[in-house]
């Protein structure tokens, strides 16, 4: 059944074969990305019947799985700048040749519809990167057996169920270890050996008819040391405490009001409102409200936003991007002034800028596109107490559940994990989490206080067509926003919501 054509080559030979084939078929530039990674996933849902005490029997569902993600993606550029991409799941010559042919077919088709562009100019100056790099880790997840990973979840579960209100614990653990190789006809030849580890946790509390939950993630690029027992226990206690405290929380008010965002809410807001709007592919397509605004004051003084793929420990860390460009820290907004966009080589060339290492692909099967790595708002001088001073009525948004943005329209929204009312300059009662929605250009000007407490958290991001979901880090201190639009269920003022009491 097997033919010579589909007998797997070794990775080095496969990459050389694909690059050679691309050149022979007329590509003026080609790159290949070979990936050989192992994933381990563990899931747990543990439930205690509503109203039962701490000693009640629990029902548990455990799942574990292992995955091999191995294959090769090839991208080519034609003589007039057309770009095409295809991938091969195996390393046989026939599969590799088909991938090259499909990619080139896309590039040539692009050239039939586009104005003539020099193939070399499409990507800007050649980038030649070589080397072998490893991301730091103390305990490599690949060298730890499954039982040790189950223990991390057991530790979390025990700590969370120590709270009598805890009714359910849902945990998802994932680690990914292995190599990513990149080679190009420019002469790049890079091998990155990396490990990434994440624990996503949701703790639910129940009392009578009331149910509340709280969720957060822990982890980054590194080893099992990122999920050390004290950190896991601390997260479990924190989420269990929050879920219990928010039981019976009242409805949040709706409408325009002052909002203070904690670290995670701010980083979610910055990711959606600033990060996506600074992606140069959307900027070039005229699909970002920040297009054409380099040098303009787009935010309040004191607002400085950077994206740094080199931020140690974060989930968005990488030494080279998926075009072989050394990753570097980019200041997007400095003291409210828009300074730079995030670029692939192609978008950088189109805008006459140097590439800045923000081309990322979900895996070998997808082409690289402009992405964030780890975005953060730089810290200011304010403490939370100072931010609260003078806020007669408002809302405090905490944690993150996710967000969405339409960069072209300049509209974003995100949902925190939970919220509290602010009254008379103090934090008040818990309320159910409302979303915050706004116009990007308005709301960046409405930040009137930036906190001094910068923290980072893991997260993820989906973009592209077809969608590519990737890990992305973010960080921020607290901020205070004036005239934030809050999607609570009532038109009631904060005070009225307070009086109405729990639902």
């Amino acid at each position, binding site marked *: 059944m097997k033919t010579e054509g589909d007998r*797997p080559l070794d990775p080095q030979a496969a990459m050389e074969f694909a690059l050679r084939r691309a050149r022979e078929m007329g590509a003026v530039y080609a790159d290949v990305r070979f990936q050989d990674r192992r*994933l*381990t*996933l563990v899931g747990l849902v543990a*439930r205690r019947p509503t109203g039962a005490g701490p000693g009640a029997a629990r029902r548990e569902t455990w*799942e*574990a*799985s*292992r*995955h*091999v993600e*191995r*294959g090769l*993606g090839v991208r080519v550029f034609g003589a007039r700048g*057309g*770009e*095409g*991409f295809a*991938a*091969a*799941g195996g390393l046989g010559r026939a599969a590799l040749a088909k991938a090259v042919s499909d990619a080139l*077919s*896309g590039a040539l*088709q*692009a050239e039939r*519809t586009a*104005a003539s562009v020099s193939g070399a100019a499409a990507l800007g100056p050649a980038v030649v990167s070589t080397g072998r790099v490893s991301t730091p880790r103390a305990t490599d997840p690949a060298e730890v057996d*499954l039982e040790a990973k189950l223990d991390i979840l057991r530790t979390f579960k025990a700590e969370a169920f120590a709270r009598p209100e805890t*009714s*359910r614990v849902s945990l*998802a653990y994932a680690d990914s270890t292995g190599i990513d190789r990149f080679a190009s006809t420019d002469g790049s030849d890079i091998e990155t050996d990396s490990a990434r580890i994440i624990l*996503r946790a949701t703790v639910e509390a*129940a009392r009578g008819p009331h*149910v509340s*939950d709280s969720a957060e*993630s822990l982890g980054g690029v590194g080893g099992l040391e990122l999920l050390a027992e004290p950190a896991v226990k601390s997260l479990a206690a924190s989420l269990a405490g929050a879920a219990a405290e928010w039981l019976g929380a009242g409805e949040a008010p*709706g*409408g325009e009001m002052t909002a203070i965002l904690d670290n995670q809410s701010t980083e979610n807001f910055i990711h959606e409102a600033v990060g996506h709007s600074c992606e140069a592919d959307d900027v070039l*397509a*005229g*699909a970002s409200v920040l297009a054409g605004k380099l040098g303009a004051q787009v935010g309040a003084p004191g607002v400085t936003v950077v994206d740094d793929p080199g931020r140690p420990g974060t989930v968005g860390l990488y030494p080279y991007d998926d075009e072989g460009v050394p990753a570097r820290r980019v200041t997007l907004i400095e003291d409210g002034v828009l300074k730079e966009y995030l670029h692939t080589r192609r978008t950088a060339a189109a805008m006459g800028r140097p590439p800045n290492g923000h081309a990322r692909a*979900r895996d070998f*099967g997808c082409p690289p596109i402009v992405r964030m790595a780890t975005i953060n708002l730089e810290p200011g001088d304010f403490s939370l107490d100072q931010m609260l001073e003078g806020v007669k009525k408002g809302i405090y948004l905490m944690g993150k559940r*996710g967000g*969405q943005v339409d960069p*072209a*329209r300049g509209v974003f*929204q*995100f*949902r925190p994990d939970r919220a509290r009312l602010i009254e008379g300059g103090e934090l008040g009662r818990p309320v159910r989490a*409302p979303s915050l929605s706004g116009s990007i250009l308005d709301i960046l000007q409405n930040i009137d206080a930036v906190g001094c407490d910068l923290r980072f958290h893991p997260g*993820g991001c989906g973009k592209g*067509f*077809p969608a590519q*979901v990737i*890990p992305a880090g973010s960080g921020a201190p607290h901020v205070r926003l004036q005239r934030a*639009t809050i*999607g*609570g269920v009532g*038109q009631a003022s904060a005070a009225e919501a307070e009086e109405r009491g729990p639902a």
Partner: protein
Amino acid sequence: MQDLVERAEQAVELARRAGADGAEAFVLDAPEDAVLLEPSGAGEFALRTANTVLHRGLGLAARWGRRVGFASTTDLSSPALAEVVNDCRRAALPDDPALPLVSAGDAPEAPGLADKRVLEMNLPEIVGVAMTVGAEAREAGVGVLGVVATATCRRVAIVNSAGLVRSSLDTRISAGLYAMSRGGGFAMWSRTSRSLAGLLALAVGRKAAALARSSDDARDVVPGLQTVVLRPDALLSLLATSLGPALGADRVAEGTSLFAAGGASPGDGVASAILDITDDATRPGSTGSYLFDAEGTAGQATPVIRAGRLVSLLHNNYSAASLGLRRSTGNASRDRSGRMSTFVEPSGPFGYRPGILPSSLVVTSPGPTFPDLPAAGVDRGLLVQDVMGAFVIDPAVGDFSVTTTNAWALERGRPAYPVKRAMLSGNMYSLLKQVLALAEEPEDVVGPFSLVSPSWVVADLVVV
């Protein structure tokens, strides 16, 4: 197709040789051709990218005694299949029931899910589809920021050690564009069909243009409690992360559905009495239909809500076996949506054990469905085309706080003027009970599952 079946058979056989008492292999090969056009000057489009994205791999579940393991690989070579069996055994944990397998039974009949034209399409033809869609929008007088088109031929094979061998071939083609009109109106609009003719009949470019133009000169929304009309796109956004997953018996069992722990059970009123909802995987040509589900059970039609009462949950083979039911409802799904995400994940559905999702939720009414909003008795209110931010709804709770994309204030049941972004807040399970009427023509819209529904007229939603 035989190549995929052979790979699946090989994996099951390797598991058997490794001492497994039972095994099931799922293989997917679904290359997706995707093109992106951008404007290139007066009335022209340039092809920005043309990619073939790989969705290919094998997932294997196997049982050793009471221990069940799961593993996957994107590499379908023989050494990789041996590796996946080894990984499967290393990941095995106690489970109950331990890997119930779908029996062979009769092969289901194909409900017309593959279109010969799409199967034979080459890249220039896909580009042609995108050009057509873009030209439609431009002829309708709007600017176009970008046009996308994709075509997928999806081949699936499932083999298990109980003798089941299933394979299927289906097609999907989609197009979407981002339109901007001179008055500042925006629209992002896309549609998916099984067939090329079906997609072209949807006139994606013209509809996007009309949507953008009707959103010109938007005004601020009037906040307060309002009658809100949710078009099918908005409904699917909201239902995809609430009712859809909540109907899964797996979520009920683990307590992550509203219908768990006394929230509601079959026979209870969970929705307005004017709602009938059926999950139907057998509609010919529908985007949500399938020959068999992700475990090999034939697609079926299952009434889930009748006159507002919950009549059935949805099952895969595992949940059916857990509850001692005679058979699954054929709703096993390996879609990643609705699962807790770490963002460190397998690259395709072959990397997930089967969960439960609807195929197509078909919404009808035991009473009348009205041709338009005035006929349904709508006077003032808000008409909502779609919303953003619904993906964070927790199906166990149902609270939502979302932002409209295209929306219009209604007067005498007709759009009076477009409104700028408005926020809708409430609870999905309360919303289900607040549905006053169904109106306008049903549409078939696609997300993690398909929704076939008219618009819903909903009483007293909070608009901010």
